Structure formats: structure tokens, C-alpha cells
């Protein structure tokens, strides 16, 4: 059965056409990331790479170094983790960002060095690392990059790029909701429209919460023999966009796989092994946004073609869907913004789904309706920000609330306190996390 999370997406890594210098620089960075996977030594090695890289780069281009240091803690508010720990997140984190430009070229590297106190230890990663080339009416970006398409606020219709749901639910800064993809992005910008094509040679999945830290619904908890099979190929995404009478209009195409895994038992009657896999998926979508009355209206729609099981007869594979989103955002007063969204998912082969669903499994609705609201209010010359996001699924009662207060102590220091509150049916996307409510703290010094 599909694991319940919203999701999807695309990308790669062949610095074709990059000057040899840049390719070498880029290659070594990527190599560092790929080769090193665990152990504190990785962070040190990576830091050395930065220093070694800098000297030739500064001779060749305009180079800017920046970064931050961060502490991030999330306490359980209701119950301990399944592994007995009392924290959802406990981590020190540093970033070094290198930004080099020369004419039409740009090299951007964001290296994150982090230490997790909840058993994962060194969590360093190359957050982003890419080379850009921008010509007058086309451009290319190659390497690890974060891509966000679509219009939704924590609701994803045409943003089929990989997410990190664990980061969102464990109170990390919002930027960690997105995962980088190793891809080549080609942009073409003729007069009549803009096109972006994203080619990823390797599939990158979304990260779902860790079962040691979050209570995830599991219909077969007794089966401990589990394996994950990732697609052996990459994926591709295309976006075309332009202005139509003052509205931002876009079309989206995706051919790849579901970003969150489905699970298949080897035998329904007496399962001994569960295999996680990523079903084949194509998406055809569109979006429109622009001024309407006093606010901004956003509309999005997409058809999710479940290529793995078009007939909808395989209970382990998500049914084909239509997703619809309407959002409206206004500014009712100075420094105040209010946003509302209505989001629907419609299952296409509901009859086949019901017929194939094994007894004892939770039954999903034919239509799923969700409403969300977000309030953002600034105070003290926009140095203090309160924001609250709430999502409620009217079909099954699933809900998620995230209030947050963030203050900039100086131009370099900021801190935030917030909470993640979940509820709903035990198998719902948020309902399964009902006992995982947490309160989080973030503090960051930027340099």
C-alpha cells in the first residue's frame, strides 16, 4: 500500500560544456560527497576541499564566502519516540557557501556540516553544488540543485521534486523541506514563452520520517524482513511558462516515479517480507496565478497517471488521481498577510481500488478535501514574525498545525520557537503522528 505522504519529482550530473577548470572543481566536490558518507572525518575533508578550491577560484572569478552556524532542538510534547528518546531533533549545524561568478558563469556550493545527537552522528551533506551558464535566451544549470515549481503552500500539485518530510515535522528551518536533486536543467527563453527541462539520471526519493523518531502507521508490524528497491533510472520534468493578460501561466510535465515508497508484502495471507518500491508515475499539470480583487489568486491542477497500475487493481500502488488546488492570499493590514487554500484529490478508479483492497486495510475516500490557512504577522519593523499554518482534511479529519515566532536579535542572529501539532485517524498522513507533537527551537548566526 502507498505510504501516506504528499509528494513527487526530477534530475543529474554531467557538466557537459563546462570549462575544464570548473568541471574539475565541480567534480571534486561531488566526489567528496559521493565518496564520503559517514564519520566526522568527512566534514573535515570537505572543509579542506573548500580551502584548496578557493585559491584558484579567486584568481579566476569574483568569489563570495558566507554561511551560518545553527542549533536546532525539537522536544517531544506528548510522548517519547518509538526508540525511547525525548527529542525529535537535536543537532548543531554549520554551512559554508561559496559563490563564484565570472561573466555568464556561476558556481554555487553550499556545504552543510552537522552533528546529530540522536544516533546519526555526522550528517554532513552537499546541500547544493552546481554550475550555471546563462546566455541571452538560454541557460544551463548542472549539479545538485533545489528546484521548486508550482504555487502551493505545503501542498504540492506540480512541485514533483523531492521533499524532506522529516525535516518539516521535526521543526527544522523550512528550507530543509526541499531536497536537492542531481540534475541538468536546461532553460530556453524565446520571446513567446519560457521552458525549463530537468533531466536527472538517478532517481531521488523524498525522505519520510524515521520510524525510530516518529510513529508511522504500519499495517503489518510483525513483518521485520524489509527491503527497499529504488528505480534503476532517472526522471524528467518540463515546465513551460509565460504571462497571459497579467496572469502567470504554466504547464508542467513529469515522467518518473512516485517520490514516496509503496509497500508490497510477498504473501497477503502469511507475509514474511515487505518490499518498498517507487511506482512509475507521469504527471500532466497546469497553474495560473494573478491578481483577483484585493488579493492574489492561485489555481493549480494536475493529472497523476499511475503508470504502474493504470487499471487501479493493484492495492499496493496509488490509484491515478486528479489534484486540484485553489489558493487566495490577501494583505488585510500593514505587515499582515492571510492565505487560504482548498485542495482536493480525486481517485480515478475507485471501484477497482475498493475491489482490490484487502480486508482490514483502511479505506480511503473517493474524494479527499483539505483546507489550509496561514497567517503571517510582522512586528517591530519586521524583525519579529509570527506565523501560523493550519491544515484540515474534511474527509478524514487529518490535521496539522504549525505556529512559529521568529525574532532577529541583530542583523546576524535570529532565533525561532514553534510547534508541530498533528492529529486525525491513526492511518492518516498527520493522524499517524498524533503522539509525535513537538516544540522546536532554532537559533542561527549568519556570517
Amino acid at each position, binding site marked *: 500500500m502507498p505510504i501516506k505522504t504528499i509528494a513527487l519529482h526530477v534530475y543529474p550530473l554531467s557538466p557537459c560544456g563546462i570549462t575544464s577548470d570548473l568541471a574539475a572543481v565541480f567534480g571534486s566536490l561531488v566526489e567528496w560527497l559521493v565518496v564520503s558518507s559517514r564519520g566526522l572525518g568527512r566534514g573535515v575533508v570537505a572543509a579542506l576541499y573548500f580551502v584548496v578550491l578557493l585559491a584558484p577560484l579567486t584568481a579566476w572569478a569574483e568569489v563570495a564566502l558566507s554561511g551560518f552556524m545553527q542549533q536546532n532542538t525539537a522536544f517531544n510534547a506528548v510522548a517519547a519516540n518509538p526508540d525511547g528518546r525525548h527529542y525529535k531533533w537535536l543537532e548543531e549545524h554549520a554551512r559554508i557557501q561559496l559563490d563564484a561568478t565570472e561573466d555568464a558563469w556561476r558556481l554555487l556550493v553550499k556545504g552543510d556540516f552537522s552533528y546529530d545527537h540522536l544516533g546519526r552522528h555526522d550528517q554532513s551533506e552537499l546541500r547544493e553544488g552546481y554550475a550555471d551558464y546563462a546566455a541571452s535566451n538560454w541557460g544551463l544549470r548542472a549539479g545538485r540543485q533545489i528546484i521548486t515549481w508550482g504555487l502551493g503552500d505545503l501542498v504540492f500539485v506540480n512541485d514533483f521534486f523531492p521533499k524532506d518530510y522529516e525535516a518539516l515535522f521535526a521543526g527544522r528551518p523550512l528550507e530543509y523541506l526541499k531536497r536537492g536533486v542531481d540534475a541538468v536543467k536546461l*532553460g530556453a527563453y524565446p520571446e513567446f514563452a519560457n521552458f525549463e527541462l530537468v533531466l536527472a539520471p538517478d532517481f531521488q526519493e523524498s525522505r519520510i520520517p524515521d520510524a525510530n523518531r516518529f510513529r508511522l502507521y504500519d499495517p503489518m508490524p510483525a513483518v521485520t524482513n524489509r527491503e527497499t528497491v529504488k528505480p534503476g533510472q532517472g526522471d524528467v520534468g518540463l515546465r513551460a511558462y509565460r504571462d497571459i493578460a497579467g496572469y502567470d501561466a504554466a504547464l508542467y510535465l513529469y515522467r518518473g516515479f512516485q517520490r514516496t515508497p509503496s509497500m508490497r508484502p510477498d504473501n497477503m495471507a502469511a507475509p514474511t517480507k515487505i518490499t518498498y518500491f517507487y511506482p512509475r508515475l507521469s504527471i500532466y499539470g497546469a497553474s495560473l496565478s494573478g491578481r483577483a480583487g484585493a488579493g492574489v489568486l492561485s489555481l493549480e491542477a494536475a493529472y497523476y497517471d499511475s503508470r504502474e497500475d493504470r487499471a487501479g487493481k493493484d492495492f499496493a500502488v496509488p490509484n491515478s488521481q486528479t489534484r486540484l488546488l485553489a489558493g487566495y492570499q490577501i494583505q488585510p493590514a500593514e505587515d499582515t498577510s492571510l492565505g487560504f487554500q482548498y485542495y482536493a484529490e480525486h481517485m480515478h478508479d475507485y471501484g477497482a481500488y475498493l475491489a482490490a483492497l484487502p480486508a482490514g486495510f483502511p479505506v480511503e475516500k473517493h474524494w479527499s478535501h483539505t483546507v489550509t490557512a496561514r497567517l503571517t504577522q510582522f512586528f517591530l519593523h519586521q524583525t519579529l514574525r509570527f506565523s501560523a499554518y493550519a491544515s484540515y482534511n474534511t474527509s478524514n479529519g487529518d490535521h496539522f498545525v504549525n505556529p512559529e515566532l521568529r525574532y*532577529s536579535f541583530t542583523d*546576524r542572529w535570529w532565533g525561532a520557537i514553534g510547534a508541530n501539532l498533528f492529529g486525525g485517524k491513526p492511518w492518516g498522513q498527520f493522524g499517524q503522528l498524533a503522539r509525535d507533537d513537538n516544540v522546536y527551537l532554532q537559533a542561527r548566526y549568519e556570517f
Partner: protein
Amino acid sequence: MKHWWIWLIAALLPLAFSGQAQALTGEEVMKKSQAAFLYPGKDFKARVVMKLINKDGQERVREMTMLRKNMGEAGGDQKYFMYFFRPTDVKDMTFMIHKYPARDDDRWMFIPAISMVKRIAAQDKRSSFVGSDFTYEDVSGRDIEDDDHIVEREGKVGDRDCYVVKSTPKGSDADFGHKITWVDKTSFLPLKEEQYDKKNTRYKQFSADEIAEVKGIPTVVRRTMKNLQTGHRTEVAYLKTDYNLGMEDSLFSERFLRQPPRKWVD
């Protein structure tokens, strides 16, 4: 002296012309002032350093490159592009405004951390620009048609002769009662402006602190907006100011919002 009247006319002519100059209406003065202050050149670029200073003297700095392109005549549509350098938590953020005098702006923001372009609601041009004492209107202009303008008197700011214009909002929805602007008679730049609330109390004061000629165009390169009620003030310096650089329309687009060209944002 048959033609005594010719001599009389000749003698009176200069008076007549100077009389005409003085007879500029309030609206004409404000139109010329807007053209001189917010519309000079076909396009404009500056590195803007804003210091937000509270009454205890504590400072916060907002630094950005601001690009502006006129889409037509003075008083018409404009496009703005901003790239932020400071504070560090908004570094690389970009912001774009398509300004239409008679209706609400279109605004877009690019958030680099999540690589997302967001269109943002903007029905209130009177709201604070990046937390400063300047409003969007103070930065990009207020529609002349929104107020009644009367030349109240003539006055001086320093040694500069000025028109002193009182502007009163036509509608009742404005958040201020009226404002008084000292407009330089030569350059038509606003040298001083006082904003009054609806109870007729002065609460905000603008001053042009330094004017420099850039490509022959008198430009306010240092300015201050002070909130007289809270004691908070914002001092702005325009560095590397330049005009008529040949900015393309395509610069003001989502592509460059996501990928600001270094050439324009240094």
C-alpha cells in the same frame, strides 16, 4: 510717443512670464516633482543602503541593488527589481514590482533557500518597505490623482527656493490627513516633506540630505524618513547611482528573479 503702449508691454512682459511661472498649480508642481524624483532617465540603478535606527540609536542595515525602468512617460508604469545583500538571512533574495499608478502593483518575491517564486498580495502601497520608515509609496511614488494639491506659499529649505504644496487625499480611506512638501523651484526635487495624521499632528518627516548630479540629473543620494511619534528613523544612501544603462524589459522577469544577472546586481 505714439507707441508708448509697446514700451509698456515690453516692460511688463518679463513680469507676465514670471507671473506664469508662479502660477503653476499644485498638481503641476507635484507632477514635475514626481518626474524629477522618481522618473528621471529611461532606467536607473543604485546600491541602496538603508539604516533603520531606533530611538536608542540601535541600527539595522538593509542593503540592496535597486533597478528601475520606465515603461513610458513620467507618471506612467514602471518596473522595479531589487536584489538583497543584507541582512544575511535574506541575502540573494530578489523582489520585483510592476508598478501601475492607477491600480495595485504586481509583486513577486524569490526565496532562494527553497528556490521558490511567490506572487505576493499588495493592496496597500502605504505599508512599510522592508520594515523601514519608508512606505512602498515613498519608494516608488503615490498616484498624483489620489490627492488634491494646493501651492500654499513659497518657502526656503536652506538657501533653496521652494514651492510649499499641501496635498490632501481625495478619498477617506487614506491613513494620513495631509502632507506638506517643499519642492525645489529649480530641480523640482522634494527637499522636505511633512506628513500629518487625521488629527492634524505631524508624525512623519522626510528630508533630502544630499543631492548630487548624476549624468547631469540632480539626484537625491541621501535621504531620511523620521517617525516623529516613535523616534524611529531610516537613513538611506544611494551608492553607485547611474542612469540610462539600457536595461532590457526581459530583465524584469521570473527567469532573472530566480537567476539575477551579476552584471546588474553588483
